[in-house]
């Protein structure tokens, strides 16, 4: 994990600047992730953590005003949201939206087949898909009944997050940004996140995990912890930085780390 140029990185972000509704939010974010690396992104509310994920994913309301982002050999910023996903970028939403009337299993299978088609792989039929989806749902603790219900409609906060984990497991991206994946999850759910991150890391997925909670951060054993402040990466460290921020807060946490060093 670096905050400078890294030619072995699968995700390379350089001086990324982003505006939302004309207001600058990111003012020059630089980071790089190699395959299998896990970085935790921390920061106060409004520091731009979610903006970073949504801008990388190509949300049309997030206007990139400067900088670069590359996913492997692809110029990420030149692609639309679909192409970014097909190139291997996955964003776990902080608040995953409902899709009324669309069954979860149909949505997931449609998404998976879109990606498989892009990768030149054979389409997966409904029965094979259901078998795989049931196994992964059990792994992330998502009740099987939710596969047959409309996407996120009437799900609890924790079920939505487990559903995001299920999608991550099935779609197997190159890079995943998990935006507060632990919010709303019970202790078993947090364990499922840690296990999923570990499994994805072993298969080479690079992950940027946005979180405020030390318990999860420690269980992830991240390669790096980044603190985002005022639209920039203000600090880079390891779990010690996360502990200091958890103990002292975002105003005083970095000073505590400096003193400890």
């Amino acid at each position: 994990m670096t905050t400078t140029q890294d030619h072995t990185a699968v995700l390379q972000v350089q001086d990324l600047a982003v505006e939302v509704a004309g207001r600058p939010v990111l003012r020059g974010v630089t980071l790089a992730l190699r395959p299998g690396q896990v970085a935790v992104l921390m920061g106060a509310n409004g520091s731009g953590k979610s903006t970073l994920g949504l801008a990388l994913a190509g949300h049309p309301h997030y206007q990139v005003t400067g900088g670069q982002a590359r996913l492997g050999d692809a110029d990420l910023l030149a692609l639309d949201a679909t192409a970014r996903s097909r190139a291997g970028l996955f964003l776990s939403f902080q608040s995953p939206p409902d899709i009324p009337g669309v069954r979860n299993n149909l949505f997931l299978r449609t998404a998976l087949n879109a990606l498989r088609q892009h990768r030149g792989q054979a389409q997966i039929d409904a029965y094979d898909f259901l078998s795989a989806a049931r196994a992964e749902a059990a792994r992330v603790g998502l009740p099987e009944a939710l596969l047959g219900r409309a996407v996120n409609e009437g799900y609890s906060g924790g079920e939505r997050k487990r559903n995001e984990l299920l999608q991550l497991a099935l779609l197997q991206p190159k890079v995943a940004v998990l935006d507060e994946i632990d919010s709303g999850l019970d202790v078993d759910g947090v364990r499922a996140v840690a296990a999923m991150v570990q499994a994805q890391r072993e298969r080479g997925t690079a992950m940027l995990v946005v979180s405020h909670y030390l318990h999860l951060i420690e269980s992830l054993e991240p390669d790096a912890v980044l603190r985002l402040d005022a639209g920039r990466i203000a600090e880079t460290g390891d779990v010690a930085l996360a502990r200091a921020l958890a103990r002292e807060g975002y105003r005083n946490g970095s000073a505590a780390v400096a003193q400890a060093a």
Partner: protein
Amino acid sequence: MDTAVLDTPLHRAHQLRLRAAPAPASASAPAEPCPTWVYLEDAAAGFRLEPLTWAGAVPALTQHGGEPPTLRLQLGAGAHAVLVDTVPPGDDGAADWQLELQLGAGAWLQHLRLRPERSGAVRQVRAHLGADARYDQALLCAATAGSDFTDVRLEGDRARAHVGSVLLAAAGRFEHAVHTEQRGRDSQAGIETLVLAAGSARVDADARSVHAPQARGARVRQRLACIPVAGQPRVRLRPHLEILHDDVQAAHGATWGALPHDAVFFACQRGLSAAQARRLVLAGMAQAVLERTVDAVDLRRVLRGWGDTTGEAPQPPGETSDDVTDALQAALTHWLQPLTVDAGDHDG
């Protein structure tokens, strides 16, 4: 004469397939002596389907401005039936007709209606509900021309009716109206209409509900919604309540909203093309309206045939509820082309 088909047994109810007769090959063709409708009777199940007689063939009726043919269906006390009402493949559905339904005490009719035709025909459904009777109508309609009118009279106490309609309007002018009148005590009525409009379509969608003076404890809910998906459609949504009793509950709303962009972006982030995402999200919205009205299993059976009537490739058979979404996506693809094909947008 085309035939009506009684598909039995269903999992828990009889199903009547109601089809209009094809028009004569030419004006000089001998007129059918009568009936365009086949007579079905199943006393054990408690329903009777009764064709009215009229002179001459349908075109003659239309030409002379006479009353359109009427079909009467009576459902006996406690009976339960599913009425599937569509246009057979190859039929342009040009005939006007009206349907009169009489539901006895405790009867329940699920009425699934598909109108994929472009004919401009006028369809009218009138239903009379006895005590504890229940009538649910789901309509999926290519709203390009013509009109569709449903009038439900809840005459008995505790009668219930719900009419859910999805109108796919890409061109032409279409009028849609659902009226309910609650006369019995503690009755419930629901009207839900979703208009997906594109191009130069012109649609009037009305909901009118009356609570009669004796309708104590009656409840009604109206929900009208339009989503313009492309072009410059004009859609008028007109909810109307007429309440003549103090002890009633009524809610109504009419919304003109945009496609839910957060859901579309979410789908794109999962790898669907923009067109795929819009189609799936809209099909889901349509499916939600229809499934709030009729049983998903029955809906699935009926919508499997949609591909035949639109000319789309039939969906492969299956036993998953994905069939409904697939069929609705086929309908959207067929009727709302601007929605599903973008320049430079490739599903693959």
